[in-house]
């Protein structure tokens, strides 16, 4: 098993190279930075870069060196997680991101868990009642939900449920209330939970569609397999046939699909952090874009890609664990 994991990790390395290479190319050759290389000052019609910032950038990314050397240096640095220092406050990028990472990950993680919890039963119910009103209703509702943009739903919910003229149940923004430090531990925890409810809900409903639909298809496929007929022929009660034999098979692909949801969840988290003023990676991204803090911008991009890559790895390993047919080859 460990050899398998080891081998999968090895296979990740070329992709890691690719990720760092792509971000490097973006740094070096994107329109804004290309101007830097030409030694020019600010770009036309946009925010100009000060001379100090320009110098920092050139130093940080070795923009004055030939591309290959610069890439090698960048690779070395990023693999040691030395992503440079923020242009804004000269703190290490890695540390700045590290402070924000837990919130974003907990947001994405909760949404993922919640959407799985809701979507799998929905998908299975739809599969079991195929073609009937329940199936159609679930498909329709899930479909419409999928079409609602995250930020629209967020605004709508804020309007209805948080501040504003209607119900005022939940806080409108922030991760904790202002007087959080005065609260006892339980109150503080509860306060945090309340603040997270709306963002998590907004992030969850979007994934519901794909996961429940996938669950439905997977369950229908499993129910159509020969071994289900064998289980029935053995005389097993229908309940066991469905929930022991069919479901166990259907769950295998469903479990591994979470990796595919990761990029969407991170993207969604970014938008929601902006709307709800949550101090996560997304908010840092916007602040950095505003301040033209390129090291942080690229640091976040690389890190997000690596997180996604790791989730693909996790999904692969999970697949092997869960499906006896897949050997450690």
């Amino acid at each position, binding site marked *: 098993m460990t050899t398998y994991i080891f081998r999968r990790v090895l296979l990740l390395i070329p992709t890691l190279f690719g990720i760092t290479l792509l971000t490097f190319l973006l740094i070096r050759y994107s329109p804004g930075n290309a101007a830097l290389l030409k030694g020019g000052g600010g770009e036309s019609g946009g925010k100009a870069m000060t001379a100090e910032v320009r110098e920092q950038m050139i130093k940080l990314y070795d923009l004055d060196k030939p591309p290959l050397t610069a890439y090698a240096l960048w690779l070395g640095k990023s693999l040691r997680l030395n992503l440079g220092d923020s242009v804004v406050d000269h703190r290490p990028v890695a540390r700045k991101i590290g402070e924000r990472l837990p919130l974003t990950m907990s947001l994405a993680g909760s949404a993922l868990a919640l959407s799985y919890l809701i979507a799998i039963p929905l998908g299975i119910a739809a599969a079991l009642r195929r073609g009937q009103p329940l199936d159609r209703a679930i498909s329709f509702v899930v479909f419409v939900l999928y079409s609602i943009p995250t930020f629209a739903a967020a605004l709508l919910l804020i309007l209805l449920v948080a501040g504003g003229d209607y119900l005022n149940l939940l806080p409108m923004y922030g991760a904790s209330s202002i007087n959080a430090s005065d609260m006892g531990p339980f109150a503080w925890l509860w306060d945090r939970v309340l603040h997270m409810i709306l963002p998590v809900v907004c992030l969850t409903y979007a994934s519901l569609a794909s996961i429940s639909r996938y669950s439905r298809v997977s369950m229908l496929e499993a129910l159509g397999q*020969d*071994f289900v*007929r064998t289980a*029935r*022929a*053995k005389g097993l009660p229908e309940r066991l046939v469905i929930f022991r034999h069919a479901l166990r098979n259907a769950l295998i692909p469903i479990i591994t699909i979470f990796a595919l949801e990761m990029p969407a969840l991170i993207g969604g988290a970014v938008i929601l952090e902006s709307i709800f003023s949550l101090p996560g990676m997304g908010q840092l991204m916007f602040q950095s874009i505003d301040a033209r803090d390129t090291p942080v911008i690229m640091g976040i991009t690389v890190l997000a890609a690596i997180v996604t890559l790791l989730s693909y790895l996790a999904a692969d390993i999970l697949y092997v664990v869960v*499906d*006896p*047919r897949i050997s450690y080859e």
Partner: protein
Amino acid sequence: MSTPLLHVENLAIQFGPPDDPVKAVDGISFGMSAGETLAVVGESGSGKSVTALALTRLLASPPARYVSGRIEFEGRDVLQLPESELRALRGKQIAYIFQEPGSSLNPVFTIGYQIREAIELHRPEVRDVTAEIVSALDRVGIREPAKRLNDYPHQLSGGMQQRVMIAMALACQPKLLVADEPTTALDVTIQKQIMDLLKELKRTSNMAIILITHNFGLVADFADRVAVMFRGKIVETGATAEILRNPQHAYTRALIECVPKLGQKQHRLKVIDYAGIT
């Protein structure tokens, strides 16, 4: 003559819209006694598998429709049985083995587990279930059965998978075994092995066996009686030796002639001429 184990009377099963149905089984009747071996022979689409599955109402009822007829097993009509009694019938009285053993076994459970399921369900009095599983596997000719318990189906060859299916079917000591084309998906040499196993079982137990096949060649030294099906109807039925010697119906004749015979010089394989059959 003993009371028939199984008696099917005028069974008709249809698919599709009621005004334009596909008559998969179009009014067939046959019977079997305990310990007897019946072969149901016919080509694809003749309705033999549908009949086999109907014996314990395994056909999904939409889309299939049981239009008419009775299936009497030990005197009781299967088509009228309540769910709970039907489940008691399945596996315990009537057991099945299917055509594709690889996909008929659940890939995520060990074979030991799948057999255990059957035993625990139908024979709760058994104390040492593991020993029972081991002896079942042994009886079907699987070597080192104790080690094989924890194997997954994909780790076994096709022939062994089918043996496991047979073992699973036998574990509950059923009165009737329905074998739906058990060797069609296997190599010829494995086919022989499985058929030999079935012959052995026929000899050593009092279990009735229905063998569904399209291959008349398998029928000859295995079945006591034969029923020939064509387009949903039974066109001929009788003792095997009699039918082979003296086939009455044109289709039966054609089927028998289709079997290539070693040593006989044939320039072309025989093909069934449907136009000549009513």
